């Protein structure tokens, strides 16, 4: 069951020119590693992705919100370049979104002391769905339009209010921001098999070598302060 839901296959897309070239190059470098789950299938532009969980409005929100949590400007990929929204969409469509592993029996006390942990009756998928609605309504009332139409500075103010619990979310949605931020970082840094960290760009950016998992000679004091020279590999054998 875990197998099925965790590596829920990433929907196939039409082949973009850029993706095709990347696939060809990677394939040349990795002829012996042809047997991996997703091959080097080309991935289209984010704009061509058809969400499996989010509605069109929700998808617009997730793209806008994650791109403030990890903006595109400056060095390194932003959430959009890393395809974090794809990751979140697939996670919410699977076991994580359904809280399949969690104890969800009643009675629930969603206003309990936060030290007692997650106590909402709603699984993450519902918290996102209802949380986005509430928060967009709050943005309209407070700032005059839905989140995605606000300027970046106002979007940041709105997210700060959401984080601080200042937007009037009911208690059963109080973990919305924490989930959104956690899932955004997961989508940025997890293996690309889950749809995010596109091209392992987030790993390249910070210098994490991914699934290389063999470093014996790097304990040698001669290697102290030497920057590890190899780029990351993914579980499916991609290199960057």
């Amino acid at each position, binding site marked *: 069951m875990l197998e099925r839901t965790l590596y829920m296959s990433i929907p196939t897309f039409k082949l973009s020119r850029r993706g095709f070239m990347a696939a060809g190059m990677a394939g040349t470098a990795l002829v012996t590693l042809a047997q991996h789950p997703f091959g080097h299938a080309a991935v289209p532009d984010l704009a061509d992705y058809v969400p499996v969980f989010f509605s069109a409005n929700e998808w617009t929100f997730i793209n806008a919100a994650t791109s403030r949590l990890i*903006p595109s400007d400056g060095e390194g990929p932003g959430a959009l370049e890393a395809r974090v929204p794809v990751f979140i969409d697939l996670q919410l469509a699977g076991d994580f979104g359904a809280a399949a592993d969690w*104890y969800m029996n009643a009675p629930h006390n969603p206003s309990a002391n936060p030290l007692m942990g997650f106590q909402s009756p709603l699984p993450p998928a519902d918290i996102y769905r209802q949380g986005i609605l509430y928060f967009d309504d709050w943005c309209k009332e407070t700032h005059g339009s839905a989140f995605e139409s606000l300027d970046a500075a106002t979007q940041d103010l709105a997210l700060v209010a959401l984080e601080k619990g200042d937007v009037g979310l009911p208690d059963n949605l109080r973990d919305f921001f924490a989930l959104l931020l956690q899932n955004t970082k997961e989508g940025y840094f997890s293996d690309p098999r889950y749809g995010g960290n596109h091209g392992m760009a987030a790993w390249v950016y910070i210098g994490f070598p991914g699934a290389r998992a063999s470093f014996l000679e790097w304990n040698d004091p001669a290697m102290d302060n030497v920057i590890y020279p190899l780029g990351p590999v993914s579980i499916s054998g991609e290199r960057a």
Partner: protein
Amino acid sequence: MARRDPKKDVVIIGLGWTGSIAGIELAKEGLDILALERGADRDTVPDFQYPNVADELRYGVRYGFMQKPAKSTVTLRHGQNDTALPMRHLGSFLPGDGVGGAGMHWNGNTWRPQAEELRLKSYVTEEFGADIIPEDMTIQDWGVSYEELEPYFDRFEYMLGISGQAGNLGGKTVPGGNPFEAPRSREFPMKPLQMQLGPRMFRDKAEELGLHPFPMPAAIASESYVNEYGMQLGPCNYCGFCERYGCLNYSKSSPQTCILDALKRYDNFSYRTHCEVLKVELSADGKTATGVTYFDEAAQEEVFQPADLVIMAAYSLHNTHLCLLSGIGKPYDPVKGEGVVGRNYAYQMTGGTKAFFEDVEFNPFVGSGSSAYVIDDYGTNQIDFAAEGFIGGGYIHASQLNGQPIRNLPLPAGVPSWGAGWKKGVKDWYGHSLGVSLHGSNMSYRDCYLDLDPTYTDRHGRPLLRMTFDWKDNDIRMSQFMKEKIERVVEELNPTSFKSSYKDIGARYDIRPYQSTHNVGGTAMGTDPATSVINRYQQSWDVHNVFLLGAGSFPQNLQYNPTGALGGLTYWTLDAIRRDYLSAPGPLV
């Protein structure tokens, strides 16, 4: 009606470390043995093999190898007047499920308890006077001494294949080891692991300050090794996927790498997975167990498995739960101060300081669960409790476990948790931090205990285990003492900045962040049936053919990781069963 299967000589509940040892030691006696494991079957191949296991999201974040709360969880409250709420997803502690239990996803830190810790109440009373023990503290002696257990600690360490450096060989101090440890009869089976820059920086500074750093005793092979069961380990490649993962390299000691292939060759041993024991069944007089009832997932039915001997080898919390559900021992009542099952639950006090070095490149992904230098200069047997105002102690370690970025990307104070500042911060600081941490004791208290929850039930309709627990000033004072010691070393390392996280007076137990899967007590061992569930051989005082293995036996928590202690106790108990119990079943005390 439950299905009734043919009788076995022995039924073992749980196939982690203690269940696997019990299985192979009793299989040698020719007994007909069945082990029941509630989780999945697991082996290095295919479950831990490269590259699939090197997946932080699946195993590190979504807890792929851990217990699923949907199937089994606890409720928690801070005090007796609170309403307990369920732990709905994992956080503070991560019990395993499946073959290997928590023994496959651990870090491999393998310690012996101090001689003083095993007779803590007597030690405190003799050295400092009984009046320093707070009124609500219920610490006890274990009922078995270090000298008695030494051969069994030794055997457990040689079975696992521990990499380390002795500090005390037969009373003689050995340079480079822990000078404060109790005497060992021989060296560790393997030389210490190789160490990375961060732990070595800590070692050098600690030495300079007159402290006594030594390598973490590691259940991770530093070279090739064959143990007493003919199981082979290969040297660690420092892949950085230890904690929360099965080992992809046959290097980390686990039931899989150290016991199970040898055990499976005994025709008189068998095991069944996805079989959760619901209850230990007792005879009409309650003095013996007649077997166990379990739920067979494949057949979707309850099964009664008769047996002459029941070895309870589930995780500590589940052993307590099963005792409460089965009527083994009298449940603890904190109001009357009577009863024993669930009494003396304790946890682990942790805390730490992250030091940031803008000009040092640590390559944090190079590491293992036990890549650490440690000091034990502030251990339980080194502290003047009367002067310091607390009972307990801890070891301090600088580790390089892994560099997995979702969970392990410490950022200095002032870096925001999202936005452009976060994005810049992760680039600036990934690979530039060194953690120096406390691993400390936790005492037992009258109102920290386990019982059955009145409201919440599991999928079998059984009441969940309820945990009543909070931090106490005694243990928080210990943590503050250690903070001062750690920050002193860290400041001497001259970092760009550092950031500390320790419990302050008034801190409440927070079930959300991971702290430690060292839940102990609940079925404490001891010399007095009025204050212990099991005798010094881990045999139920009330039901003589039930033995309880694991950290549930601890009457309060050690300052150390529990596996070395519970492993030694397991061999001690199996020896007593083989030597004395099988020929004349009855109370061993």
